[in-house]
């Protein structure tokens, strides 16, 4: 069964704020081998003009993958079979980098669903903003649900 086109344009309720921890940024930076001081050292980050230690460019995935998975991929009405899903495309558009101390809310939307060659393609968009409504980053992921055998 192809994915239901009527989900295109559907937005889910804003998530509870994700509080970005200094140690989480340090852990993520270490895991990807990013050694620049602004990811680890508060004084170095402040000297470069950041409010706190700054997150590497792909860090937003920590919030958006978890929240879009919980809201969209696991939406029983949409009925995605995650065992057949692979990650197709990923895109980030930044208003500013994430820094430790940010309290970030995600609004997840199903932006596009297409079917081609028996496979389903779904693009999700996550608008990541502060609690005060300042847009920080927009994140798109295209998931491919491979056709059933």
């Amino acid at each position, binding site marked *: 069964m192809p994915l239901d086109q009527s989900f295109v344009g559907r937005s889910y309720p804003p998530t509870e704020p994700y509080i970005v921890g200094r140690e*989480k940024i340090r*852990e*993520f930076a*270490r*895991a*990807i*081998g*990013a050694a*620049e001081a*602004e*990811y680890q050292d508060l004084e170095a980050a402040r000297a*470069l003009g*950041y409010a706190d230690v*700054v*997150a*590497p*460019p*792909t860090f937003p*995935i*920590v919030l958006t*993958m*978890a929240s879009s998975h919980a809201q969209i991929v696991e939406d029983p009405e949409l009925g995605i079979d995650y*065992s057949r899903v*692979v*990650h*197709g*495309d*990923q*895109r*980030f*558009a*930044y208003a*500013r*980098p994430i820094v430790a101390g940010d309290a970030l809310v995600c609004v997840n939307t199903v932006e596009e669903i297409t079917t081609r060659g028996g496979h389903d393609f779904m693009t999700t968009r996550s608008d990541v903003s502060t609690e005060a409504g300042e847009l920080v980053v927009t994140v*798109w992921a295209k998931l491919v649900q491979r056709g059933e055998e």
Partner: protein
Amino acid sequence: MSLETQTFRVTRADLVRYAGASGDFNPIHWSERFATSVGLPGVIAHGMFTMALVGRAVTAWAGAPDAVVEFSVRFSRPVPVPDTDEGTEVVVSVAVKGETEEGHTKLTLTATCQGEKVLSMAQAVVRKR
């Protein structure tokens, strides 16, 4: 035209560390048994780990993480990571492609593993350094 190439070594330990840091515990990234049962050649790297390595090359080129305006990739081929001390290597290159209407620099990015491209349509837009 500037072209900068960087080689990143990727081992199973890196994938375990990335799984913990990112919260992506899909077993295709740590269980050989599970990965082969779903038709993969073996444990493969998280696509987002490969993208993070390319992101390191982009921020290094741009000079700062806040210089990155846009960053996008398509995952075109998996990166198998054997259970050896050496693991595998991902080779990343960054080339200037032009300028956007806003005056930012457009970068074309490539990532290869074992001589094959693992990303397509990979690009970034960065503020001028």
